[in-house]
Structures are given as structure tokens and as C-alpha cells.
């Protein structure tokens, strides 16, 4: 069995920041990441971040990984990284099981754990929603921005939140036509700055619309959409058809929470946080002592918030196992203030109303 002081599950923005914070405090951290590379979904985010300088605003997501890895490298004597390794179980007796590649199965015991497993894309229910060519917006981002492959020629984007708007823009950067963006809500969910950019490029954003069905034999060939009323019910006679070979689904993400649930952490369904999330204290410690969580797995927000949550959880986890530094309070207050600032807008208000329900 492998011994670890602080195990961090997931090497995305939250996990990397947790590692930096804990290693800086003096704790020995072990990061386990299921991909071959660290950075999680930052790897495909070509847009510049918002927030403040502390969360690398005006820097492209793809460049933030390197900044974080350089920071982590300062404490390299305290850091071990296991990539291409998937944590597959967390048990009552504290044993954690992992799989390196496909065949090397091993156990880990850790004094504390930060679970930073992120989130995954939701789907949308409509007839033929399983046809090839209907992809998650993040999937299309991966295909384009990581592999340089176009998803198709003509895309209908479902969802006008930030991801839907940003990916639409990125599709056009890659030379793919976006025929329209639709959203069931009556207002555009994403930032106005993104929406205006899209509109300037001539792409209509259709609010109060949903997908009625997809049509195609082996893959999508046509999409039918229709208007919805204020109770989100389809209005007959408002159908529009688009000849498209790709439909992008960008209707939000939901926390990847299996490990926390398996370990027995108390979970709660909180719509504002997009799914089942662990109850936690203000230090991001769950209802099981020494099991911490950070990032989208504690509620879906943006990568900026995930990073600060990671810093905070890493700091507190390290302190809990004996690495409480003299400047602990100062560092903690700084992270709390950063989170408050990130959550100060209307979206933040919504998030905070969710967080209220899980902080114990």
C-alpha cells in the first residue's frame, strides 16, 4: 500500500491550486490525475479569463496550466504526481484504490484527501438525442482546440450560457459555420460581451427556443426547434428547421461526485450548484473528517472560483494534518475575500443561495 500525507484527486484547476497551497505550507502532496496531462479542462480553453489578477484574468485558459505548474514546481520536493491514474474507490476504512493505465491496481492510505474531480456535461432530452454528431459543447472544444479537428460543417448550438457562447465563437475561429444559438430561457445566460461578439458575427441567438427533435439515419442531418412559453412548454406552429451535421449541447454541467458519495460523505441535491454536492464546513471539509473537496465537484461554477477553492481547501487540509503556517489566517482570509469578490454579481448571488444550503 502506498502512503500519502495529502492525496489530491484530480489535477485540474482546483486540484493544482490545492496542491500548490498545501505544498507551500509544507505538506507532502500526491496528485492523482486520470489524464496523461495536468490542467484538466484548461487545456482546451482558448478564451481569456475574467475575474481579477489573482485568478489570472486576461490570461487564456490554455496558458494558466503552465503558470500553475511553474508555481507548483517551486515546492517540488513536496510534490509527487501520478498521471494516467484513475482513483476508482474510496472506502469506509480509509483505503483508496487506484488504477494506473489499465492494469496496475494499487491501494493508497492518506492522512487527508482533497477531492477535486470536477464536473461533466449534461445532456438534453429530445427524440434522437443519441445520434452521432450531437456532442457536448466541451467535447467539441476538445476535438477542435486540442486535436485540431472540426466537428463538422454546420453547427446548431443549444444553450446561450457562457460555454455555449464561447464555444460558438471558437467554432467560428476554427472555420466552422454556426447557424444559430438557442436557449429555452427568455434571456441570454452568458456574459453580454460574449453575446455581442457572436451577434456581430451574424449568428442569431434565439431565446425561448428548445429542440423539438433531431433527424438523421446514422448521424444528425437536421434539427427541428420550436418556441416555448413561459412555462417552458412547446408552442405549436413555431417550428424552425436547420440542416446541420452537428448539434452542440451546452446546457450546463453536473458535479462528478461518485467518490465522495461512495466514501459516505453526506450529499445534498442543490439545483443552484447543479447537482448532488457534499455538505461541508467553511474550510471545504466534508462531513467525513479529513476528506476535503474543492472546485466543480462542490458545485458548478467557473474555473476562477475552482482555483481559489482549491487554494483554500489545500491550505486547510494541510493545516488539519499538522502544517498550519504562521500566516494561515492571512492566507485564508485572502482566499475567502477572493471568493466573495468572484461571487458578487447576479450569478454569484444564485451560487451563494446554493452554498448556504450545504455549509454546516
Amino acid at each position, binding site marked *: 500500500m502506498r502512503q500519502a500525507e495529502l492525496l489530491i484527486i484530480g489535477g485540474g484547476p482546483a486540484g493544482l491550486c490545492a496542491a500548490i497551497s498545501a505544498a507551500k505550507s509544507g505538506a507532502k502532496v500526491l496528485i492523482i490525475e*486520470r*489524464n*496523461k496531462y495536468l490542467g484538466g*479542462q484548461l487545456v482546451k480553453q*482558448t478564451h481569456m479569463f475574467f475575474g481579477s489578477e489573482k485568478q489570472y484574468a486576461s490570461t*487564456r485558459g*490554455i496558458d494558466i496550466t503552465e503558470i500553475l505548474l511553474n508555481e507548483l514546481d517551486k515546492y517540488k520536493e513536496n510534490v509527487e504526481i501520478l498521471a494516467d491514474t484513475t482513483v476508482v474507490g474510496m472506502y469506509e476504512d480509509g483505503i483508496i484504490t487506484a488504477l494506473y493505465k489499465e492494469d496496475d491496481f494499487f491501494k493508497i492510505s492518506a492522512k487527508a484527501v482533497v477531492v477535486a474531480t470536477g464536473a*461533466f*456535461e449534461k*445532456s438534453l432530452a429530445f427524440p434522437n438525442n*443519441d*445520434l*452521432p*454528431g*450531437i*456532442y*457536448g459543447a*466541451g*467535447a*467539441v472544444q*476538445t*476535438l*477542435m*482546440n*486540442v*486535436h*485540431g*479537428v*472540426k*466537428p*463538422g460543417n454546420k453547427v446548431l448550438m443549444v444553450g446561450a450560457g457562457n460555454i455555449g457562447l464561447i464555444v460558438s465563437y471558437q467554432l467560428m*475561429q*476554427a*472555420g466552422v459555420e454556426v447557424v444559430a444559438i438557442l436557449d429555452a430561457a427568455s434571456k441570454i445566460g452568458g456574459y453580454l460581451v460574449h453575446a455581442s461578439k457572436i451577434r456581430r458575427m451574424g449568428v442569431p441567438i434565439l431565446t425561448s427556443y428548445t429542440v423539438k427533435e433531431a433527424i438523421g439515419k*446514422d*448521424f444528425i442531418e437536421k434539427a427541428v426547434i420550436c418556441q416555448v412559453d413561459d412555462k417552458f412548454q412547446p408552442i405549436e406552429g413555431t417550428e424552425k428547421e436547420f440542416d446541420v451535421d452537428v448539434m452542440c449541447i451546452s446546457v450546463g454541467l453536473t458535479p*462528478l461526485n461518485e467518490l465522495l458519495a461512495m466514501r459516505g460523505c453526506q450529499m445534498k441535491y442543490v439545483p443552484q450548484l447543479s447537482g448532488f454536492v457534499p455538505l461541508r464546513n467553511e474550510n471545504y471539509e466534508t462531513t467525513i473528517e479529513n476528506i476535503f473537496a474543492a472546485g466543480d465537484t462542490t458545485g458548478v461554477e467557473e474555473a476562477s472560483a475552482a482555483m481559489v477553492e482549491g487554494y483554500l481547501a489545500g491550505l486547510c487540509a494541510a493545516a488539519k494534518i499538522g502544517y498550519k503556517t504562521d500566516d494561515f489566517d492571512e492566507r485564508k482570509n485572502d482566499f475567502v475575500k477572493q471568493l466573495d469578490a468572484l461571487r458578487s454579481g447576479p450569478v454569484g448571488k444564485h451560487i451563494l443561495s446554493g452554498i448556504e444550503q450545504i455549509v454546516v
Partner: protein
Amino acid sequence: MRIEEHPILEFKKDKKINFTFNGEKIEGYEGETIAAALHASGVKVLGKSLFLHRPRGFYCAIGNCSSCLMTVNGVANVKTCVTDLEEGMIVETQEGKGVIV
């Protein structure tokens, strides 16, 4: 279906990789996943659903949803969206649940 020009990104496509899909020879590039290489060659249907035999493509492309499972070098249920392409790979659509070796 590859991106030729991009305002921000550069794609390193140095080394070509040869592989087969259902016996047909296809070229991809080192560093890309099996699903990406197939998609670049126009292959969107990666398999069939278990019971209704409906066509399946990838959905999440990050190894979560299992919509992209294929048989690779005789091994069933390989997540092709997160598995790197290798020279000489034999990639096949999978019939049924696949047999665990």
C-alpha cells in the same frame, strides 16, 4: 475535417500514424486520440447501442460517458475518446458488450 488555420492555436501534426478501422486503412497523427483521428477521417459512428442497435458517436470526449467504446487490438470497451492513437492499431466497432479477456 482538420482545422487548416487558426488565429490562436497551432497544431503539431508531425508524425503520421497508420491504423485500421474495420479493416480499412486510415491515417492519423501522433498525439491525437483514436476518436479524434476517426472523426478527422469522417468516421462519426463508433459503435451500436446494445439493445436497439442505434448508432453511437462520442458525446463527452473526456472519458466519462462511455458512448465511444470500441474494440482496440482485440480488447473490448476501450474509451477511444481518451486513448492515444498508436502505430498499427486495429480499431473495430464493437458488437454487444464485448468479452473481457
